[in-house]
């Protein structure tokens, strides 16, 4: 057996980068038992923590990059190890040293896009508002009820542009006075921060904050739970407090207040997938379910892992930009759970989840067995 000595300097560096909470670990192993990775392959958060405790982290290891920040282990951790923040500390060190092993390499390109064009796809900034063309969507002005922040995925990704369109359609039909910032909007920065690129996050956040303030934004409606999370819980680090509402919450409000009327029937079994950053991280569990239950004919069924125990799609923590090999995708398991629950439609409300689920759907034997819909897409059909 190899003999090593604790590496004091590394311990200090990890601490400085925000990994101080590693010290609390008493190695009970609970994190490993709830971690979704251990449903598809071996991965030990406990070992990662233990190595960090003694400054023995292998900074070139791919394991540093596995965590999807789904929030399962900190939710259960009896010692308050703050696995997400602590794990990000290790990635900060890797990022500072420009170490992105094998499959993690795309993060470099993503950063370039975010830095230059404010989106991870390196698409042109000026095209950011193009999705809204012909949809009767106006630029945001101060007098409007709400700013709709569509996020990079809904602005550029073809599959998700449909979600943006559905959202705009619903808002218009409900008579909501809303607008968008188009090319002035930048990536919210949530996911790049989780890869340890704190500097880039700060840049993006400051840009957005400046834009929001300049435009007189008070209330922000978001489609992505990741945007929701960072606006609500992380932007206040810059001493700004915007009112943030997630589309699933907003839909629920519109229905309750009678602004949105659902007329059609949906006679299918539907299951709802709780995105980690809406559910576990921010406690949005019941509003989307209330929305679905208000659809005539719809039968809502629950998957084995639901609400606070929801199974991550695999897209958080920057993993959306990393190619996960077949057989190791959580989203494959999630689709199985949906089918086992008897659902023919899997509804969610997160661009990463939709992206991963659509990928996994293509791998299904019968690709028609399950439809993947954003909650806005289903509501749009029901109006």
């Amino acid at each position, binding site marked *: 057996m190899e003999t*090593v000595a*604790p590496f*004091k300097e590394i311990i200090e560096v990890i601490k400085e980068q925000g990994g101080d909470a590693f010290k609390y670990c*008493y190695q009970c*192993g*609970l994190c490993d*038992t*709830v971690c979704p990775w251990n449903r598809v392959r071996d991965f030990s958060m406990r070992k990662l923590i233990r190595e960090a405790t003694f400054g023995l982290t292998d900074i070139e290891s791919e394991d540093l990059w596995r965590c999807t920040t789904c929030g399962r282990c900190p939710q259960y951790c009896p*010692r308050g190890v703050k696995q997400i923040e602590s794990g990000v500390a290790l990635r900060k060190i890797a990022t500072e040293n420009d170490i992105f092993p094998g499959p993690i390499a795309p993060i470099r390109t993503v950063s370039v896009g975010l830095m230059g064009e404010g989106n991870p796809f390196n698409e042109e900034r000026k095209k950011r508002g193009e999705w809204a063309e012909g949809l009767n969507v106006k630029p945001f002005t101060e007098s409007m009820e709400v700013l709709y922040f569509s996020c990079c995925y809904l602005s550029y990704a073809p599959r998700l542009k449909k979600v943006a369109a559905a959202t705009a359609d619903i808002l218009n039909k409900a008579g909501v006075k809303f607008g968008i910032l188009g090319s002035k909007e930048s990536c919210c920065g949530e996911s790049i921060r989780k890869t340890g690129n704190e500097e880039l996050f700060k840049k993006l956040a400051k840009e957005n904050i400046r834009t929001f303030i300049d435009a007189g934004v008070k209330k922000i409606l978001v489609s992505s739970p990741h945007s929701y999370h960072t606006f609500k819980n992380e932007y206040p680090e810059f001493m700004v407090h915007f009112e943030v509402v997630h589309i699933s919450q907003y839909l629920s409000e519109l229905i309750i207040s009678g602004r949105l009327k659902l007329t059609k029937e949906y006679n299918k079994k539907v299951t709802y997938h709780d995105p980690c950053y809406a559910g576990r991280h921010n406690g949005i569990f019941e509003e989307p379910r209330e929305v679905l239950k208000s659809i005539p004919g719809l039968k809502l069924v629950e998957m084995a892992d639901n609400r606070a125990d929801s199974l991550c799609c695999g897209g958080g923590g920057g993993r959306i930009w990393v190619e996960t090999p077949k057989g190791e995708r959580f989203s494959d398991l999630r689709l199985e759970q949906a089918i086992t629950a008897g659902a023919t439609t899997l509804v969610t409300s997160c661009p990463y989840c939709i992206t991963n689920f659509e990928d996994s759907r293509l791998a299904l034997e019968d690709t028609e067995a399950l439809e993947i819909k954003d909650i806005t897409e289903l509501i749009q059909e029901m109006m």
Partner: protein
Amino acid sequence: MENEIAQKNLIDVLVVGGGISGIQASLDLANSGFKVYLIDKSPAIGGKMSQLDKTFPSNDCSMCIESPKFNECSRHPNITILTYTEVGTVKGKPGNFKVTLVKKPRYVVESKCTGCNICAEYCPVKVPDKYNQELSSNKAVHIYFSQALPLIPYIDPETCLYLKDGSCAICEGVCKPGAIDLHQEEEEIEVEVGAIVLSPGFETFDPKLRTDFGYGVMENVVTSLDYERILCSTGPYEGTIRRPSDKKHPEKIAWIQCVGSRQITPGGNSYCSAVCCAYTQKQVILTKDHDAGIEATIFHNDIRAFGKDFERFYQRAENLPDVRFIRSYVSVGKEIPDSKNVTIRYSTTDDGVKEEEFDMVVLSVGLNPPSDVQGLATTFGIELNKHGFCKTNPANAIETSRPGIYVSGAFIGPVDIPESVVAASGANALCSELLSYRRGDLSKEREYPVEKDVSEEEIRIGVVTCLCGANIGRVVDTPGVAAYAGTLPNVVYSEENLFACSTENAQLIADAIVKHNLNRVVLAACTPRTHEPLFRDTCREAGLNQYFFEFANIREHCSWVHSKDKEGATAKAKDIIRMSVARAAELEPLQEFELPVNPQVLVIGGGLAGMTSALSMANVGFEVYLLEKENDLGGMARRIHYTIDGFDVQPHLKELIRKVYRHPSIHVYLDAAITDASGYVGNFTTTVKTEGQIKVIDHGAVIIATGAEEYKPTEYLYGTDDKVLTSLELEDHIIRRDEKVVNSRSLVMIQCVGCRQTDRNYCSRVCCNQSIKNALKMREMNPGMDIHILFRDMRTYGLKEDYYREASEKDIKFIRYEPADKPVVETAVEGGHHIIRVTVTDPILGKKLAIDADLLTLAAAIIPSPSTQSIAKLFKVSMSPDGFFQEAHVKLRPVDFAADGIFMCGIAHYPKHITETISQAYAAAGRAINLLSRDTVTASGAVCDVDENDCVSCGACITACSYGAISFHDTPKGKKATVNPVLCKGDGLCNAKCPTQAIKLKHYTDDEIFAQIDASVPDDERGQCPGAAGCAGCGSH
């Protein structure tokens, strides 16, 4: 009863909470001469202990050891039990509190009810049975549990149809004594009390509040308290292990430790609940006893076997076949829809995460403060700690923040039964100190008529056949049995009785003795174990010698075991009664001895324990002789300067020493050595050599507090390298602010040095906390120091778990090692400096860590003091296998020796923390006060006696006696054995050993027993051997 309360509302001590701690406190207080009210908010006393199947580590039946105490309380002239009662308000000050008691309506008039339970039989409403953890059902009116005290039903107002909407009053109609009162109202009782003891107990953590383990959703996930009921013969499945979903016998059971404990997760408790490791091991052992084929798996993250004999108990569980202890916290995977089995996911260091299926999962739930603890605190005006337990002082954990109000049991914090009992006895000492001026003023003694001489009378036996409600009556044809009993020789009276033990019916028996001039009484009913004292008392009240009473057990020995065979049971009941009648005819009147008690106490050992006991007893008013072998008081505590919870030990010690020296009733003998000890309870004589003089001390009780010692390690370079210290030595350096030590750059501590190994197979209990305490102190003095603690299991039990986390927070690093792969310690030179290199395998890293230290401390074991053996010999008391003193009963008599009148406290009993030692010292004082408060001690009449003519002086009886009750004495015919009746326990071992039958046990003489055996076959059947082909001829006919 109501009137009685109104008139006599002046009492000494109010005990709030009738669990084992409250019961023990009441008994100790009442026996010390105080008038006590024992109240409980539930319908019966007994608390959580009454729900347990067995107790660790002795695996005694919980109810069997607790219920005799119920009866002791109920018969005690100075204890009044009020159940279904809570405290409304508390005003006043120590010595004179004014308390309002609120007695909730139970809708059953206690004075009229006979406990026959007919009401429950007829009640149409089924409700989940709370006593059985809602795993079975009961009725809206029912007796809380079958051994409940009082044995009186209560009506649940939530579910009773009458109380809900007036639609049913069946119970009222069927109750023959008219005890049901559906219009009963809440009653307020004002009392004036001198002191209050709070023993409200605990609640178990409710895993339903968080869904993480599927409790309440998955049927086969149960809590450990549910499982106690499942194991218990009075539980929902009558003691067969079944799982709730399909009532099938599970084959694979998992236990999950620390449910609700050792976590900062919202809804959980940060502290360790201290009892779960041991109770789980108990459940595993019992499960394997029930069905050796069951596979048991225990998931944990430290086995905390810190109590006396716990380490062996753990090994006993671990070494059973198909038992696995797996070090991992777990999550519940899923419930399998068809089988309702549950999967558990756990971590391993070698094979990653595994998911395994179990038939049943037991959640080892932790202990929470009592429900509505905030309300309790407000009512009594006491403070709580941050966990919601009673705020106490490390110098005295039995005192609350309000003078005159004391605390015992799990309200102090999570503790097991012995510690609850210790605090209860300790509360007696503290109440006795406070109320010494009025001790005995309110208490009363029972008075009996003059005993009649029946020696010249013909034998007149009365037989009473009890129906025990339906217990006997439903199975045995009691009218037939009673009629039969009337035909037996010498029987002049035979009657049936629905419930002989109810106060009214017992009076009927006493009346019959007088009216029919009976001189023997046979009661065909339940067990002498719980009820004999009551009926002996009945005989005394009728002027009959109590040894003329004879029990025929037709319940446990008959109706309960033959409930399916009524005819057979009836025949057997007749046999049992016939045998008892035959024995009764031979019974002799016996006298109990009363011996004076010398009210002085000898305390051996002038450490913290001995001094605390001595001072408490002196404050109560007893003369105390305190012996110390050294030339000054203080003992081991002189080496302990601070505790982990911030108690500054030395000022306390100095003040205690000062008080002890100055107390006029304490006689301190230093440099003391005991040269001789003789005598027995109430009358000991001890000879002491002290400072060149010989002193002979007469005393009624002894408290042994001789302490223990620190092990001198031979391991890890101790003694060869001055950088290696023991924990106590480190503490000394810390206190002296030794620069070399304080300025160390790197400190390593190794735990479990010298114990938890074959030759010292116990845990020294204090070392984990001691190391953390020192580590935190070192961190305070030198923030830059590297500190590593190498441990096997961190045993920061109870509220001390918080310090374990605090140590982690302060960057003290913990590394687990296995006993088979101990750390390797060697000297090395690094950068020109002499250092110590400690190499240890880290199981999670799968690597060896080499840590360079300039200071290594060893958590050395606490070992018994050499004086333990000589003291044990002098006072004929026993020692545990580990060489500490052995208590009479590990659960319920934790400070008593088996020999009466001798008590123990401190680390001579077992390693323990200072606060625990102080509590135990008060407990020993409380027990001794109990004894010395009496003018006399009573010795049973059923003891052995020697016929000196037949004694051949072989001494066989002397060696057979476990109590040292027999000795030789000189007679004109030489040495003859003689029995000291005070010490004799009547077990009869000596009778079996005596070659000449010179020694006999009174009340169980050959004549009595042979008469009983002869009557086992009825006269008319005797000599009618049916014979058989090839009969060898037994000669019996």
